[in-house]
């Protein structure tokens, strides 16, 4: 058995004195583990940093075995983010979320969005929005997608302003007016796939929305806390105003 793929490094754990067990988020093969021989060497350690984009070859005698990875660095996203506290917390959040995925279950769209976010790590106003979209897609891929296309009450596609915390569906301004205290705001940039947020408050509302549903559907049922990196990210964003 063998395949090649492109992947994002989630974590490398030491194995023995010289090797490492690598946890990758690959594009075509989903989250995948494998052994990297010499993975603790000075030469390969910089490549195995969380958030880096790598080309990987996996080999095993049987498909159910752990197998071996041969890894080559494509984009050193981690090194570029080392000085940037916000970007590091973004990488940490992304890795924490990707680690929720079932092993060997491909999610190419999620991978592409993660890569897009990492590609824009030096654009502080853009990548947090992409992370919100990543979290929305993660919810959908895990089976808890939100319906932000039409109003849950009237079916209208225009004037969507709220999200119902009960159903995870959008609600129009008109239908939601009597219940507005119980509804969550739907940030304008999430009303369309191509919209871009211009106000940091919109992004904060996006994180509040995805955070609420992630906690309820994903983290709480698994008995896990929300990733500390995400809490740090929100704290830094609040501080930056």
């Amino acid at each position, binding site marked *: 058995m063998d395949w090649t793929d492109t992947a994002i490094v*989630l*974590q490398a*754990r030491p194995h023995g*004195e010289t090797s490492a067990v690598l946890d990758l988020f690959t594009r075509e093969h989903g989250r995948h583990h494998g052994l990297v021989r010499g993975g603790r060497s000075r*030469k390969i*350690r*910089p*490549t195995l*940093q*969380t*958030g*880096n984009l790598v080309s990987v070859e996996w080999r095993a005698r049987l498909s159910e075995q752990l197998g071996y990875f041969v890894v080559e*660095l494509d*984009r*050193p996203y*981690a*090194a*570029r*983010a*080392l*000085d940037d*506290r916000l970007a*590091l*917390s973004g*990488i*940490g959040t992304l*890795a*924490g979320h990707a*680690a929720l995925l079932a092993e060997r279950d491909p999610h190419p769209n999620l991978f592409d969005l993660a890569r897009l976010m990492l590609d824009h790590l030096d654009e502080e106003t853009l990548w947090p929005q992409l992370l919100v979209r990543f979290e929305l897609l993660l919810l959908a891929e895990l089976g808890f997608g939100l319906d932000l296309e039409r109003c849950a009450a009237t079916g209208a596609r225009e004037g969507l302003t709220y999200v119902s915390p009960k159903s995870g569906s959008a609600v129009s301004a008109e239908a939601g007016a009597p219940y507005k205290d119980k509804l969550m705001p739907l940030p304008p940039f999430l009303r369309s796939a191509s919209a871009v947020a211009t106000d940091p408050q919109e992004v904060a509302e996006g994180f509040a929305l995805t955070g609420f549903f992630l906690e309820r559907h994903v983290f709480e049922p698994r008995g896990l806390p929300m*990733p*500390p*990196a995400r809490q*740090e990210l929100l704290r830094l964003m609040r501080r930056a105003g």
Partner: protein
Amino acid sequence: MSRKAAGPEIENLIALLARMPGLGPRSARRAALHLIKKREQLMQPLARALAEAAEKILVCPECGNLDTASPCTICQDSRRDGGMICVVEEVGDLWALERAGVLNTRYHVLGGTLSPLDGIGPEDLSIGKLLDRARATGVTEVLLALNATVEGQTTAHYLSAELESAGVTVSRLAHGVPVGGELDYLDEGTLAAAVKSRRPV
């Protein structure tokens, strides 16, 4: 079925040696054989040294260093600059900096780095003690000598935020081209960090 070539005492010695870093079963056999051959010159002094070390080595309550004195020799050394604390991940890092002889300061051993995926949080590291030390009179700078890894730098950013209230200067080691390093042979990550950390000459 494997046959045993030696008694349980020798087998036990080999098994214990094989658990040392850098030694496998074969090299442990060679080391055991060497010790047995040099019983008086090496094995007995080594056994005494091990017993003495096991009995006397302590973790310094101030900085987390390993020593037989408490506080450790470094913390007791009045010739060291008490105005700076150099924060390291493990005792091995402290030893590396001492070997280099580039700092004449006191240290603080964190005992690891933050790693959410491994469940290592701030409460698992010696951060409270560091904050107490940084707030003490006379401390003006905290140097974060942590590894240039995602975990190391995440910890450094966390510590710099925590140290804000202590009113000290927080610095970190530079990232980039090592001495004697040729650009042609450097990995892309190191080059990216070096370019990002460039400075005027």
